[in-house]
Each structure stands twice: as C-alpha cells, then as structure tokens.
C-alpha cells in the first residue's frame, strides 16, 4: 500500500508501507511508475489535515511523560523530558516505554533521546533507539549520513559530490570553510545537532506554573477513586502554592485514559486560591456540569492537576476582618456558580462614562470584577425625588403606537403588547443625543418621557428622532419600566 499526493500536477507516492518497500517502491516516485512495477498496488490519497490531527492527538497522549511537548511536522514530536526521566526509571527506560506504548497502539515509531532537539531528531530518523549520554552528541551522530541533518537537498547533494558522507566528516571541516560555502544557517544546524548550541523548541501549550500528578499501576475506573485522587492532588498542589505564597487563578485537570484518549477540564477562580477543599469542590462542580460525562473507558492511568496561572496571594491566611472574609466567601460562591453555569452567566455591574441609557452600565463576569475599572455610580435623581432611570431595561426597545396631542409633545395614549394604556401623568422630555463619536452611522436623538397609566404602571418611553428636524414621522418605543 502506498500513500499518494498531487505534487507538481502529478500523482506521486509520498509514503510506502513495509510491504511496498519490499517491492522497492520509494517515496517520490510517480504513481504511474509504481503501478507499472506493481499492477495491483493499493493507493490512498494523502489527507494532510487528518495526519496533522492525529499527530496532535499523539502529542496530547505524550503529555503523560512531560507537559513540554512540541510538534515537529509532518511526522515528528519533541518531548522535553528534562527532570522527568527519574519517574520512569531513567532515560533509556523512558524512551523504551514510550516507544513500546505507541507501538502497542499500532503506530510505527522511531525514537531517540539526546541533549539537543536536533541531535535527537537526527538519531530518531537514522539510529532509532539511541540514548545519548550528556555531552556526547557529537560522537553519537558522527557516523550518521549527512541527510540526517535535514538540510536543503541541494546542500546535501553538494556534500555528497564533495565526498563527505557522514556528519562526522562534515564536522571535521573548519567552520569558516563551511560558512563560506553553505551559509550560516547550515552551520547553525550542524552545531545544534552536535550539541554545541541548543535551539529552543516551543511547547504546544503554555507550561503550567505548578503541577501535581498521580500515576496508577492499574487504570482506575470508579468515580470515588478518581475524586479522591483529585483531592489529594489538590492538596499536593496547595502545598506547592503555599511554599511560594501564591494562589491559582486557573486550573486544569488532565485525565489520561489507558487507551490513549486525553480529557482536559479547566476551572477559573476569581481570587488566587490554594485551598484544596475549594479546588476539589470546584472540580466536582465542573464534573457535574459536563454535558458529556467523563468516560473512564478502561480506566485512567494518569491524572494530573496543573495550576495554569498562579498569582501572588497577598494573604492566604485567615483574616479577622469580617468584610474581607465575606468578600472571599462570595468570591468562592461566584466561582462555584461560574464553574457550573459558565462565567458569562454570573455577572456584576460596572458603570460606564456615557449618557446612553443602555450603555451606562455594563455587566462583566463577576470573576473578573476586580480587573474591570468601574466609575463612581452617578445618582441622577435629587434627594427625595422619584427615580429617573427604570429598574428594568428592555434589551431591544419595544415599538408602541402612540397618540400625542402635538407631534413633539408627550404621549396621551399608547398601545403596547396589544394593550391600550391611557397616560395620566407624563414628564419630559429628557433629551438624550446619541454620541456621534461612538458610531459611524448617525442615530437619531431620543426624547424620553416618564409616564404613568391609570393603573399606576410607570414606564419609560421615548420618541426616536426630533420632530421636524430629524424626522417627520417619529417612532415611539418603550425602553423599560420603573418600580
């Protein structure tokens, strides 16, 4: 079987399986040529998006070894396992475990471990299974062919023409010579591979500030064990946070299923938090609110808890100030409700610098309340006077049919939601001009009236547009009602 793709308007073979390789089919040859050699050849068109997706999934799975995973398209992955190898019994053991586990999932995999990404990459392609002791990269890759450096094919070809076949031979030449002939870029690549300089790789996800994890020899399935382990992870994390006097603002629990599926759950908090009980409670809330429940399948073999974002917690200790404690308790409630309903559904208000009624106050997620500057709330009414602004505002003002004595006067009667209201009292207009600097299209000026009908219903209505100046047939709307 071969995989094909359209390159330069011709179908070419891009990858071959073991059997095809035996029949001496090679990537790069035209499909027509391959067909001529093997008439019953099975050819599949390449699906780059699916490949990419699969690679991402494998990368997710690889998160179990280290949070630092980078993708090296089209087929490679980098894992920075610095400081993680002891968990798996050493470097060689880690490499073997990872390769074996991937092979079990029926991927064909080649891996190598070295001090720099470039060296590991070369080795993985040309000498899989190698583990290079610290500082011996140059020696380890000396015997590899030049192609292992993954240079421009033109340069590789040039080396071959010059009779240099291995990396060791190239490395033996002076740098000046190489730079003059092939440019700085090539020398940099060589140095990376030799371990003389390290080019950083960028991880797929931002690295967490803190993390704690639980590995299970036997995959765990029961909800109780999962909850308990999450709680004990929260405690470990809490200790780490406490040492540095910090609290988490965003946390993520990652569940690695034995069959390779990875599930991530995030929670946010409105206040730097390091109380294990609170963290556990929020995750319980999150688990309960999932529309597709956490499915352990054959069990999770690793659960990890990460503090994605930690902030300085000014006073993690209990305060004797009553207000302070009250604020914290409310913040915890807000976190719980936000976790369950979504942060956009738990809101607080912030005053804005505008006269337009619907824009004068905005709602912001209560968790982010502290980061949104609110103006001083301006009271509009005079002391002992009636309210000037309605208690409830319609998001979209509702059109009404109005009878007015004069076109620019207050309404006498109006029909709203099919009910006729007779106005007994009216006050206005309060003229509110739309702020021209805020929108491109000019919106008409509004004349607001406070009206009361015979039953005692108090409404806020407005005429859209100044009669005679802006419009000849102004429309009327109900914008809200008073208490």
């Amino acid at each position, binding site marked *: 079987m071969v995989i094909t793709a359209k390159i330069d308007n011709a179908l070419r073979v891009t990858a071959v399986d073991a059997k095809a390789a035996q029949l001496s089919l090679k990537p790069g040859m035209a499909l027509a040529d391959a067909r001529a050699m093997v008439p019953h050849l099975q050819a599949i068109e390449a699906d780059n998006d699916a490949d990419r997706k699969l690679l991402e999934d494998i990368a997710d799975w690889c998160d179990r070894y280290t949070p630092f995973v980078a993708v090296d398209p089209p087929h490679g992955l980098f894992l920075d396992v610095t400081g993680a190898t002891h968990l798996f019994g050493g470097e060689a053991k880690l490499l073997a475990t990872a390769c074996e586990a991937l092979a079990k999932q029926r991927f064909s995999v080649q891996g190598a471990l070295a001090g720099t990404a470039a060296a590991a990459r070369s080795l993985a392609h040309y000498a899989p299974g190698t583990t290079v002791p610290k500082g011996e990269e140059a020696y380890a890759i000396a015997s590899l062919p030049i192609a292992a450096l993954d240079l421009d094919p033109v340069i590789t070809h040039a080396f071959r023409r010059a009779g240099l076949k291995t990396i060791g031979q190239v490395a033996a030449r002076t740098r000046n010579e190489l730079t003059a002939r092939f440019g700085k870029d090539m020398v940099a690549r060589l140095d990376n591979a030799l371990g003389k300089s390290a080019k950083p790789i960028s991880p797929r996800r931002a690295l967490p500030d803190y993390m704690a994890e639980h590995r299970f020899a036997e995959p765990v399935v029961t909800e109780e064990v999962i909850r308990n382990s999450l709680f004990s992870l929260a405690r470990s994390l809490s200790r780490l946070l406490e040492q540095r006097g910090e609290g988490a603002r965003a946390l993520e629990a990652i569940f690695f299923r034995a069959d390779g599926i990875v599930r991530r759950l995030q929670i946010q908090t409105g206040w730097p938090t390091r109380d294990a009980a609170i963290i556990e409670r929020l995750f319980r809330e999150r688990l309960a609110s999932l529309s597709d429940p956490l499915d352990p399948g054959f069990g999770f073999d690793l659960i990890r808890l990460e503090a994605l974002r930690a902030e300085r917690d000014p006073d993690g200790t209990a305060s004797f100030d009553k207000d302070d404690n009250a604020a914290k308790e409310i913040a915890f409630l807000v976190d719980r409700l936000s976790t369950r309903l979504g942060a956009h559904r738990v*809101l607080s208000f912030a005053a804005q610098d505008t006269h337009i009624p619907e824009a004068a106050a905005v709602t912001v997620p209560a968790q982010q309340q502290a980061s949104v500057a609110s103006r001083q709330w301006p009271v509009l*009414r005079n002391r002992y006077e*009636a309210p*000037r602004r309605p*208690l*409830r505002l*319609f998001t979209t003002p509702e059109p009404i049919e109005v009878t007015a004595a004069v076109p620019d006067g207050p309404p006498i009667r109006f029909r709203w939601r099919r009910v006729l209201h007779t106005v007994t009292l009216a006050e206005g207009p309060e003229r509110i001009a739309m702020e021209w600097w805020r929108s491109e299209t000019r919106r008409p000026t509004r004349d607001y009236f406070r009206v009361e009908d015979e039953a005692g219903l*108090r409404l806020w209505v407005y005429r859209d547009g100044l009669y005679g100046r802006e419009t000849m047939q102004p429309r009327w709307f109900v914008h809200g009602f008073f*208490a």
Partner: protein
Amino acid sequence: MTQPSHLIATLRHSLEPEEARHARVPLGHAAADLCLQGGLRSGALHEVFSAQAGHEPSAVGFAITFAARMAHGKSLLWIRQDFAALEFGELSAMGALELGLDPARLLLVKTADATEALKAAHEALSCASLGVVIAEIPGTPKSLDLTASRRLTLAASQHAVTAILLRPAAKPDPSAAETRWLVRAAPSRLEDDDWGVAVFDAELARNRHGTTGRWVMEWSANDGVFKPFGRTADTGAMASASADRSHWAA
C-alpha cells in the same frame, strides 16, 4: 482540610444567638409591621407574586425594594431566567441605584430554566455572607413544587440568608414560604406632589406567624424604608379592601 477563614466564619455563625440570625426586619410601615409581629423574618423564604396580569413590573419593583430593606448593606444576588429578561427586561444597575441600592453589591446570575435557577438559589443560600438571594421564576414550572420551596426555606434558615421567590405571571401554589405577597401597581400622584416614586399596592396574602392584610406602601429610596403612602399613616390602610381588616385594626 478546612481553610481557617471558613472555620472562623462557622464558629462566628454558631456563636450568634438564634434570634439574632432570624431577626425581624421592620418594613417601616407601622400597620404592616404590626401584622408581621415586628417585621419580616430574615433567614426565611418570602414569595412575591403579581396579583394580576399586567402588574408584573410592580411585583419586580416590590421584590427589589423588599430585598434592599432586608439586605442590611450585605450583597444581593439576583437569579433570573433568560425568559424573564425577554418578557420583563434586564435588571438595570442604574435603576437599582436610583432606588437606593448600591450596584457594587449586586450580582446577577442568568440561568436557562427554572430548574437551574432553583439549584443556583439553593447554592447561593449556603453563602452566609450574602444578604438576600432573589430567584425570579416566571410562570409555574414543574420543578418549583412544595419540596423545592421547603428546601429553599431550610437553606435560608441554616445560613441566615433571606430568600425571595419572585413569581411574575404565576398563580400562587402551595409552598413553605414564611410570607406571600400579591402586588399590584398603584398610582403615585398625590395632589400637587412630585410623582413617580415607587408605590405598591401590596397584599400580604399569607403569613405563617401572624395575620394578613393589604396596604398601599411607598418605598423611600433615601431612608431605605417603606412608608404608608399618603399624607397620614391611615390613608394607605384605608385604601385597602382586605377581608381580614379586624386583624390589623387591633
């Protein structure tokens, strides 16, 4: 592992005498307070209905002024169903401010349906630092039955947080509430006075620990109390047409 701050809150809470936690808050309206034996119980469930179609805005207004009276400067959490905002408008911070309520102490929770709203209310009532939790549930959803109102009552009394069920466009049904109010709109004009203040025709239709009555009250945003509407204290009471007048006349 309990955070020390929680422990302190729990201890402080348990040290307070029972009466203090369930103190009665006088409305300010003498006749009504007499009927309520001193005022409305905090840490209990109260219901506010609109007495008839078209008077829902007044019920909403009564609920929030009522809540402002009960909150004692503590925070107020308003839970509303999405449907309620379409029908009766979104709660306006500016409007609340004009009624004497600090928007900084106001939290708004939006829920998709009544079940979610009740769950959120139950959760919120467990936070003793809140003053009042209002759940606005229009109509008569199945999930709001006697059991649900008992649960709310229990949660409210355990943590001494006052719960208000605002039921616009709903028919009163059996519940465990401490009081039930039926609210109608009332004209606000008095002779040549300024008009437009919050005036309610409020009927105390149910009262677990006392008698019932009906009064026209005015909310004084500056003093944060209810007052009889009119020149004298009696005017408001006279305007009522309650069946059991004898109770509050005493």
